[in-house]
């Protein structure tokens, strides 16, 4: 079977929507809670952090262009440790995905359809995610390009129309030193570090020019980082420290925008990009989860396990939190630790070091990736 191919634009769009799909709305609030007025500096720090992860991803790609993360585990660490790490990765994926789903459903319900039963969102998102995963990587990548455009348009329109509202200066700078800034940068780092999922789709990348892929990954991460920085600056500039008091600050900014009679209630755009972004983020995460499980169990095709696994994920997601306070605390304070010390930073770092040390003695045989 021919493997679907992803070109550089599609790759960058995947990274873009994958990170910005949920972070665009939520990230200013969580960061400002910890770092205060210096939240935007935290975003710059987290971008640097993400660049390190991006470089590691590329380093892995450079050595294993035809394998995905599960196979790389096995090649690097042997069968037993590799399989343990693989199972861990699947669990990590399902856990992360379940919070993404919960977030998507609860925020869509909370802002846009407050009187609808949350179960409806779960069912609708479930069907969409299953459908997109069954259709395959190619369609997912192409849709991502469209949604990236949508996100960029939303971002630019909101930034431009919010300029007249800016009236809070971003001062004083670094009053409490660097430590709140560094602490604040952990949360966005955990978001940006999700670029590690790209390791799951290495075989799909067009292996024409390796250098291009490196620049694509790094430039996309820098653009995402700039987006994060600007959106944090603008929410701080418009709302001041009120930002930390609000659940979804960017949505509040959009609600305030009022330019003449035409440009009003831009929160509709927010809804647009939120639903589209979250759906694709879920789909991509889910696609990676399915691929990982399939590779782990040595199956030939991934289609038959799509529906049951999605069901399991959505059941877990449905019971993942009791209320928004828990979810916000989890995403702001617990998830960064959970992810950065496992598959987003620590394990890739160990992998790269191992690879660097025993470059010559990597097992060449073992499994091959099949679509």
């Amino acid at each position, binding site marked *: 079977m021919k493997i679907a191919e992803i070109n550089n634009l599609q790759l960058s769009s995947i990274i873009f929507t994958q990170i910005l799909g949920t972070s665009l709305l939520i990230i200013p609030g969580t960061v400002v809670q*910890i770092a205060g007025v210096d939240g935007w500096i935290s975003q710059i720090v987290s971008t640097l952090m993400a660049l390190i992860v991006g470089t590691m991803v590329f380093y892995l790609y450079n050595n294993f262009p035809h394998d995905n993360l599960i196979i790389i585990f096995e090649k690097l660490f042997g069968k037993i440790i590799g399989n343990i790490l693989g199972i861990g990765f699947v669990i990590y994926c399902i*856990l992360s995905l*379940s*919070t993404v789903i919960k977030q998507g459903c609860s925020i869509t319900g909370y802002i846009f359809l407050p009187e609808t039963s949350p*179960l409806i969102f779960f*069912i609708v998102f479930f069907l969409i995610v299953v459908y997109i995963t069954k259709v395959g990587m190619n369609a997912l990548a192409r849709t991502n390009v469209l949604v990236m455009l949508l996100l960029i348009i939303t971002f630019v329109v909101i930034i431009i129309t919010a300029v007249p509202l800016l009236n809070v200066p971003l001062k004083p700078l670094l009053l409490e030193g660097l430590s709140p800034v560094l*602490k604040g940068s*952990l949360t966005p780092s955990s978001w940006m570090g999700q670029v590690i999922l790209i390791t799951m789709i290495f075989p799909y990348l067009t292996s024409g020019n390796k250098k291009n892929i490196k620049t694509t990954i790094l430039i996309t991460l820098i653009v995402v980082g700039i987006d994060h920085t600007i959106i944090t600056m603008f929410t701080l500039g418009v709302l001041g420290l009120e930002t930390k008091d609000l659940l979804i600050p960017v949505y509040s900014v959009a609600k305030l925008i009022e330019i003449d009679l035409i440009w009003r209630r831009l929160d509709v755009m927010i809804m647009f990009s939120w639903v589209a972004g979250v759906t694709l983020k879920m789909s991509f995460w889910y696609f990676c989860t399915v691929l990982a499980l399939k590779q782990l*169990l040595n*199956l*030939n095709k991934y*289609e*038959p*396990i799509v*529906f*049951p*696994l999605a*069901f*399991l994920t959505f*059941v*877990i997601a449905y*019971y*993942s*939190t*009791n209320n928004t306070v*828990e*979810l916000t*605390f*989890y995403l702001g*304070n*617990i998830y960064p*630790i*959970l992810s950065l010390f496992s598959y987003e930073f620590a394990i890739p770092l160990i992998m790269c070091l191992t690879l660097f040390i025993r470059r010559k003695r990597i097992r060449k045989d073992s499994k091959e990736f099949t679509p």
Partner: protein
Amino acid sequence: MIIFSMFILICIIITVIEIRPLEKKDKGKYLVVNGSILIISIIVFLIHEIHPYSITNIMISIFKPFANTLFS
């Protein structure tokens, strides 16, 4: 509960439809995998019915001391 069992039913039907055209050797494998996934989800559901918990809450109670030292 009703919706849950309905979805379980749909899951089983779809699995059967998907698996039928495959070879005999693969069939068993997929049946085992799908079956165990379904059983896990039923367990998750049942535990929640008996004792309401939430995964993030468990995570929070495990990692909270760590998070407090890191973020405060």
